[in-house]
């Protein structure tokens, strides 16, 4: 934090290059993340979207070095404000985690300790990175809780996690992630378990946070519409890779990758009520048994012989896509 003596340049907070995380299972090598690159600027929110098994969560875990055996980061780099995180030992990672980069998980009931009060847990989180008096810790914690919209924060510090509702618990988890003035938060499906009205509250609070405090967010979700309300950039993952990326509105309005287009067309919101939804044929391939070339090839209606060769990431006017047969203006707004 104190290293911020240099002028604020637009250097990204988080820079990920060719990240690869593989799982070495008895059945074979699962390339859960296979060459993911992106960068995240101050106050920016990017949405990482994909279906189950696309590698979006493993990408999130890899960013803060939380991959357990048989998984291993086998290549690439993750730079947090210029500091390389890949290859850092546990002690080094512990210094970074929670202080400069933090993660919020889907189920706050699992991440919060049920036998400690919220105040105790927040004190622990603070004490992990700095020496702080109990009183100062309470003040900082109450402030963090207020920031995420928890009413009557000082009194709530003495409550236990089970005394909070699901939405409030998730707010506590976000407050803990924010305690040290964290620059980047990785949020893995943080609102999936919540009701729509509570989800809407948290989404609008997250947007405020990013705007006011400059916190950068990687929002991992399977839900395109949540991401579209929140993120300025969207990354679509399929079988361990980013298949399409770009500014949210552009990607959603005119997807270039057939997978993105297929996903969008399969949403009930895009179809006339009562009519059949368009569907992507088949199912997501097993990562153990990926087809040669483009992994989406067997489900793609535009596939040709060319697709037996792996398409490279093409970048043009702020967008990127991995496809030999891109489409323009598939979905008219």
């Amino acid at each position: 934090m104190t290293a911020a003596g240099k002028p604020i340049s637009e250097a990204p907070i988080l820079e990920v290059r060719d990240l690869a995380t593989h799982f070495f299972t008895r059945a074979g090598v699962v390339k859960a993340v296979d060459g993911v690159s992106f960068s995240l600027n101050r106050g920016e929110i990017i949405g990482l979207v994909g279906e189950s098994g696309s590698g979006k969560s493993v990408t999130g875990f890899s960013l803060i070095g939380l991959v357990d055996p048989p998984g291993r980061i086998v290549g690439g780099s993750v730079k947090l404000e210029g500091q390389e995180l890949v290859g850092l030992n546990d002690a080094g990672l512990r210094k970074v985690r929670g202080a400069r980069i933090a993660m919020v998980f889907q189920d706050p009931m699992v991440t919060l300790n049920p036998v400690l009060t919220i105040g105790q847990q927040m004190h622990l989180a603070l004490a992990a990175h700095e020496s702080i008096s109990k009183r100062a810790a309470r003040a900082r914690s109450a402030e963090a809780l207020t920031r995420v919209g928890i009413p009557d924060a000082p009194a709530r510090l003495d409550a236990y996690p089970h005394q909070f509702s699901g939405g409030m618990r998730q707010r506590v988890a976000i407050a803990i992630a924010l305690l040290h003035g964290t620059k980047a938060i990785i949020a893995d499906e943080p609102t999936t378990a919540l009701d729509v009205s509570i989800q809407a509250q948290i989404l609008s609070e997250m947007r405020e946070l990013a705007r006011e405090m400059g916190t950068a967010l990687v929002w991992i979700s399977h839900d395109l519409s949540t991401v579209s309300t929140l993120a300025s950039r969207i990354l679509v993952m399929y079988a361990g890779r980013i298949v399409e990326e770009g500014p949210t509105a552009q990607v959603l309005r005119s997807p270039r990758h057939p997978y993105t287009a297929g996903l969008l067309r399969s949403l009930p919101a895009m179809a006339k009520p009562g009519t059949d939804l368009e569907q992507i044929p088949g199912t997501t391939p097993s990562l153990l048994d990926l087809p040669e070339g483009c992994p989406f090839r067997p489900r793609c209606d535009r596939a040709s012989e060319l697709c037996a060769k792996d398409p490279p990431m093409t970048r043009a006017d702020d967008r990127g896509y991995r496809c030999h047969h891109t489409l323009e203006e598939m979905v008219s707004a």
Partner: protein
Amino acid sequence: MSEAFISINDVYKRFSPRLSMADRIVSKLGARVETRPVRAVDGVTLMVERGQTLGLVGESGCGKSTLGRMIAGILEPTGGQVRIDGKPVMQGGRKADTRIQTIFQDPFASLDPRMRVGDIIAEGPLAHGLADKAGERAYVAAYLERAGLDPSFADRFPHQFSGGQRQRIAIARALAMQPDVLVCDEPVASLDVSIQAQIVNLFLKLRREMSITLIFISHDLSVVRHVSDHVAIMYLGRIVESGPTEKIYTDPKHPYTKGLLESVPKLLVEDDALVHFKPIMGEIPSPLAPPAGCHFNPRCPIAVELCRSEDPRLRLIGPGHCAACHLAE
């Protein structure tokens, strides 16, 4: 007056908490022990015509699943009655017949992992005489095909299938009982988007091809809009608004329905639309102690004094369109 195909008449469901040992002892000794039952479903009246699809929408704890289970005859109402085609679905705590089948949210929990798919599907029809041993394979094959599965899957076990395929197996099992009514409790909530589309399409196909009546319970407003003819919105055990789907979605009258629809993240927004995103304030109150008057009043942006004291009744405000709000017109 002729009765609707499914008629849910002023149905209540209360769950009483189990007393602790200490409380049981003092109550035996004659002391009064305060127990507050959870009013999971609090006086619901609904009609569904044959072949129609009713969407039941609400957030967690609103009682939509409890209501669904009472329609399916899994739970007995504390008060009121659910009748299908004039006959009650439950008599003396026993499910009366097999006219109603249920499809649950989690196809990983609802299929017995030790049974082959064919046995899962044939179990009910064999027990109820809809199929015999000789015709079992053909019977199973027919329903697997109807659910969009290959008949050869009958010899496999549930773990060999993905979530979407398992949900199809659950649907095949339900259809094999030749039900008149299918209660679907969050049938697509645990599925990926592309798989969700396949299952939604399957429901649409079933509705077209069979004269089946569907109760479609979901928290996902866009899926419900897609499959339902009528929608009922629940809040804390009560119906706050019901009516034809398009009417509810385009011209909601109850402030809760309006708030709920506005809370749904839109897929394509203008860049400025972010500013207009206004979530409903506050949280859902505990059903143990619902607020007095209109249950929604503490969160309602337009509540007046009357809303805090008097309970609004569900009243007709348009053709087939009801709302429980003092201020709805």
